[in-house]
């Protein structure tokens, strides 16, 4: 009986699926009507193949921000939201239209990030999106933004595939994992002259990605990687990993991961008697959550980060930011720059049509971002064909007391 039922159900599943999908074939009316509408409104400009954002008088221009606003990574997501908020305050109005920031909580995960992407894409007054914050969110969400021709600039998704797909609407204003790894290896191998390295990562798309890149580059440079170990995010006791990785007595440890686990790791490494160099990526560049949380063990630790602080306008930004939200944590300044790029480009291409609507052509908007270099508070930002920065500068910082001191700046032409 049950066997027959199984067989029959297999058959019916297959058949019904064919029937269901063959029968219902909704035409893509939404897209075509949208295009027609856009053609009507665009009486002055050249026709834009991606369509237009049309904002009636009295409505507000929306700047989307996709980051983790609840649960574990909320501190970073909130930081990005604050950065974008300061940008909108500084920028003022867009040709007379008020600009507001709308935060979308993607929880640093795939599925909620895709929903946020749909939500933003469905908003007719949305000019562009800052984010997503995490690579694991950006990769699936990117497809939705590309499909709807929504401009997206991420200040923090460092994984290579984000820009590798070559989407014309996707930009990134942060060095990818490869470059950060290159800087780390150069500093460890050539500047500090260390030849043995142990690597620990957090098995995340971000941490493991950068750790594997460091391993490959360190070995290519002629160094020896004495061990590559993984820990689990959310764990607190790494002493087993610590004793394994210290067995080979490496001169330095590279950590691929975030601040919380990084602080625990450096603390436990020092407690186990490790006296070498501790080096990490941008994920640990934070005073309260890395240096303070490590309780003194982080003293002398190195980390890489996109150049912040030297560029023009940073001090004014910092004043405005700290007045309202306290110190920026990590990607607040990057988020500010991403928002500024979107708003400046929108200002450059926006027109007011005969009905008094603000009209922003989508393709022209993305092209404007690509064409015009922007001098932001994180440095000179100029994009290549794929949406990555042409010139990226990465700074190596060292934790000294209660401060992160820049010790070397690298400039890359990508």
């Amino acid at each position, binding site marked *: 009986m049950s066997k027959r039922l199984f067989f029959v159900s297999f058959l019916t599943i297959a058949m019904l699926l064919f029937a269901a*999908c063959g029968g219902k074939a*909704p035409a893509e009316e939404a897209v075509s009507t949208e295009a027609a509408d856009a053609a009507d409104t665009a009486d002055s400009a050249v026709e834009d193949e991606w369509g237009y954002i049309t904002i009636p008088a009295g409505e507000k221009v929306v700047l989307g921000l996709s980051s983790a*606003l609840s649960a574990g990574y909320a501190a970073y997501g909130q930081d990005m939201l604050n950065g974008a908020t300061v940008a909108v305050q500084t920028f003022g109005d867009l040709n007379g239209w008020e600009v507001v920031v709308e935060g979308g909580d993607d929880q640093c995960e*795939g599925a*909620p990030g895709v929903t946020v992407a*749909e939500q933003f*894409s*469905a908003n007719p007054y949305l000019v562009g999106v800052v984010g997503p914050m995490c690579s694991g969110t950006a990769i699936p969400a990117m497809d939705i933004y590309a499909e709807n021709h929504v401009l997206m600039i991420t200040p923090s998704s460092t994984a290579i595939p984000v820009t590798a797909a070559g989407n014309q609407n996707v930009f990134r204003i942060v060095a990818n994992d490869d470059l950060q790894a290159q800087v780390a290896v150069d500093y460890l191998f050539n500047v500090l002259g260390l030849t043995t390295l142990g690597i620990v990562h957090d*098995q995340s798309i971000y941490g493991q990605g950068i750790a594997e890149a460091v391993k490959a580059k360190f070995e290519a440079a002629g160094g020896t990687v004495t061990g590559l170990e993984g820990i689990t995010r959310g764990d607190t006791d790494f002493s087993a990993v610590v004793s394994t990785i210290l067995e080979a007595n490496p001169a330095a440890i590279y950590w691929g991961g975030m601040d919380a686990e990084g602080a625990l790791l450096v603390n436990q490494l020092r407690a186990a008697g490790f006296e070498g160099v501790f080096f990490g990526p941008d994920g640990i560049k934070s005073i309260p959550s890395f240096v303070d949380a490590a309780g003194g063990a982080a003293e002398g630790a190195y980390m890489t980060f996109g150049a912040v602080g030297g560029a023009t306008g940073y001090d004014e930004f910092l004043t405005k930011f700290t007045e309202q939200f306290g110190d920026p944590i990590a990607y607040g300044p990057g988020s500010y720059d991403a928002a500024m790029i979107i708003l400046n480009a929108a200002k450059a291409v926006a027109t007011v049509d005969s009905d008094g609507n603000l009209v922003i052509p989508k393709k022209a908007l993305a092209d404007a971002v690509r064409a015009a270099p922007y001098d932001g508070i994180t440095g000179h930002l100029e994009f290549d064909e794929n949406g990555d920065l042409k010139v990226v500068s990465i700074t190596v910082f060292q934790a000294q007391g209660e401060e992160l001191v820049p010790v070397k700046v690298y400039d890359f032409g990508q």
Partner: protein
Amino acid sequence: MKNKNRLTTKLDQRLLRTVLPALISVIILSIPLFNFPQQNLWIRIIGYAGLYIILGLGLLVHVGLAGMFDLGFAAFYAIGAYTCAFLASPHFNIHLPFLVVILIAGVLAALVGSLICIPVLKLRGDYLGIVTLGFGEIVRMLLMNLTDITNGSQGIIQIDKPIILGLNFSNGKYFYYFIFALVALLLFLLNRVINSRTGRAWLAMREDEDVAQMSGIDTSKYKILAFAIGAFIGGLGGAIFASWQGSIFPDNFNMNVSINILCVIILGGLGNQMGVILGAMALIALPDILRGFSDYRMIIFGLLLIIMMILRPQGFLPRKAPKFEENSSGLPDTKKEVQS
């Protein structure tokens, strides 16, 4: 007083069992038909809830029908998703048609499900829960660490969009239709299974495993069957998820997913297929509906979960008492034992 109570609960029940499902079906079907501004968003939200209905139905077979506590259902979901990613992406450069892929995904998940079930046949209750929890975590960690096969934490990207009968699923609407067609089919088939000998065997097992065994039911066989069917459905869900999202990472299948699916079926009223629909809508769509509360979204969601449970402790649609029990409901338990 008592009569009135019974009447209202009966009305209540009828409302919940007939009007509500009908209403929901109408809403579900009408979303893609009419054009409105946030259509794609709602297709995503409700479609995603639909995916959880499929997963919920799978877990319902384990927990609700066969009474086997499963805290690791995400494992079957993951197996389905990775099967799809292997067989329809540039990762191994294999590009099989989606209908073949989804069937293989289901069968593979069912196979793993029955294999994991065999050694733990003797375990009951929460002990089974822990074993399945461990199994779910082991699967996820293997996906993370067998880097040569699964690409580890970097996941698999650029998974093919299905093409069925010449229809390219680049539009979310097709996934939406596909998911709800599958939901309808699964509801129909599960209903058939529940009213078959298998369903009655599961019921007996769920009520009292020892008595069921003594009455000549081969509990091992029916347990494995339940696990295989549930896992099969989970595998189907995984394949849909992988092709819809287009990229998958081991973190997509963490323990929170297993717990969420479990919540869906408990919230719906354990043991009722229609309840799963309500549970999925409430649990999966609610966080997105609450997006307007920005920062307070999740804390409100947590509160609502508690309040919903206090207001309807048995879930939205409690399990119907089986027919042959109604006659003997007034009899004390001892008599029933004597009868059997």
